[in-house]
């Protein structure tokens, strides 16, 4: 995993599947991207345009990158995904649990408010990743149901679950505090993190009922970095 092929942002969620044969999955990704870039090379296809076609070897993610965490997750469609599946563009990441009735709906509302403030172009290049703290109850079905209830655009939003040890690690990286309560619910801090294209946290917001503007500005700053000539 140390030397990973840099792949551009997949054009649809099915392409994020890592599968049992990682090499085959990567090959499929590269092939599909070559197709995508090849046929739209003169277009404004941001997904490929800014990442050089995806054929060069990427160095390790930076030392401060959340993507140094090598963990496997499963999304609301039951597909295997990796944490760095959206490497290459801004990612707004948060942790939650589906059956939470107090702060989590506020958290999702806050993310949706930020999403709504983005322009269509910005929106097309930004991903929202919500990782569950509750691997026991948050099955893909439960996550899928939550996505439907909140009318989340699953082309750009991903609800994911991981094993208990990986959840603990991700929470530690993101600075999310949580504790399972005797009744099976969770006590947790509400934290939204904006990751840049390499997975380095560029903004962090803690607490429910926060304004969406800082999230939007951080996403724009990351997209602005993308615009700069290399």
């Amino acid at each position: 995993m140390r030397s990973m092929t840099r792949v551009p942002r997949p054009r649809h969620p099915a392409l994020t599947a890592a599968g049992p044969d990682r090499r085959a999955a990567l090959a499929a990704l590269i092939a599909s991207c070559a197709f995508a870039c090849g046929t739209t090379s003169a277009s404004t296809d941001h997904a490929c345009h800014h990442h050089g076609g995806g054929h060069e070897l990427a160095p390790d993610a930076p030392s401060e990158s959340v993507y140094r965490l090598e963990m496997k997750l499963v999304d609301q469609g039951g597909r295997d995904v990796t944490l760095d599946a959206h490497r290459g563009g801004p990612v707004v990441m948060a942790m939650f649990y589906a059956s939470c009735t107090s702060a989590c709906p506020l958290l999702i509302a806050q993310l949706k408010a930020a999403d709504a403030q983005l322009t269509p172009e910005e929106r097309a290049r930004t991903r929202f990743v919500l990782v569950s703290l509750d691997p026991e109850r948050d099955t893909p079905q439960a996550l899928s149901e939550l996505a439907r209830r909140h009318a989340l655009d699953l082309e750009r939003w991903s609800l994911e679950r991981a094993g208990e040890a990986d959840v603990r690690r991700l929470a530690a990286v993101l600075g999310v505090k949580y504790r399972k309560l005797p009744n099976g619910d969770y006590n947790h801090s509400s934290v939204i993190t904006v990751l840049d294209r390499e997975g380095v946290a560029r903004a962090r917001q803690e607490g429910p009922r926060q304004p969406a503007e800082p999230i939007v500005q951080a996403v724009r700053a990351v997209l602005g970095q993308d615009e700069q000539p290399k």
Partner: protein
Amino acid sequence: MGIATSCLLVALTGAPPPAGMARVGPGVLESTVEIAPGRTAIDVAAFWLDVVPVTNAEFLAFVAGAPEWRRDRVARVFATPQYLTHWRGPLELADAAQASEPVTNVSWFAAQAYCEARGGRLPSEREWELAAAASATQQDARRDPAFRQVILSWYARSAATRIGAVGRGPANLWGIRDLHGLIWEWVLDFNGTLLAEDGRDRGDPDSSRFCGAAALYASDAEDYGAIMRYAMRSSLEGNYTTSRLGFRCARDAGGS
């Protein structure tokens, strides 16, 4: 003794202890902080726990075989620049005495990686506190003024003194040493200690920083030692490293 008898004995007493570990629990931890509003009693299943904290020599052997945990290669997201700075080099201790002293300046990520490499994990906060509540003679000695005084006198001691070798402290009822008096220790769920800045949010979960029930509140304000530990843990981040913070490993014991 026949094979059948041996098997029966193992079945009755559980597997033999992993090297360097002793069995702790099962027990009920009367937690110093509330785990839910009004609730303090926590059932803790039996588990194996290292008798002494992990030493510099042991951690050095681990790092030698896991280069991603060398201080010159570790990712910043997993350890701050102070990580293992008390060693002379990335694979060299500062002096011979350090070998038997507990390793400190280690992050939670590094500690958990070490324990996983040994087939274990860090102990949970409740496991650690259950083990640490015992004196040499009592399973829960926390209301014993003499026991409390020993702990507090260590907390009051100057940090300038050298840490000292592991294993010199007396064994407690479970056979565990050095839970008090040597270093602070990481726990698996260090990021599960939710302490409110003050008590005003109590009973109003929506106004707090936390989802679900309100944050934790001390149920035994006399147990200063435990309160200091909970407060310390609540201030930690996973990549933090300090000169008095080390760890020991645990394993599930299975059964009860």
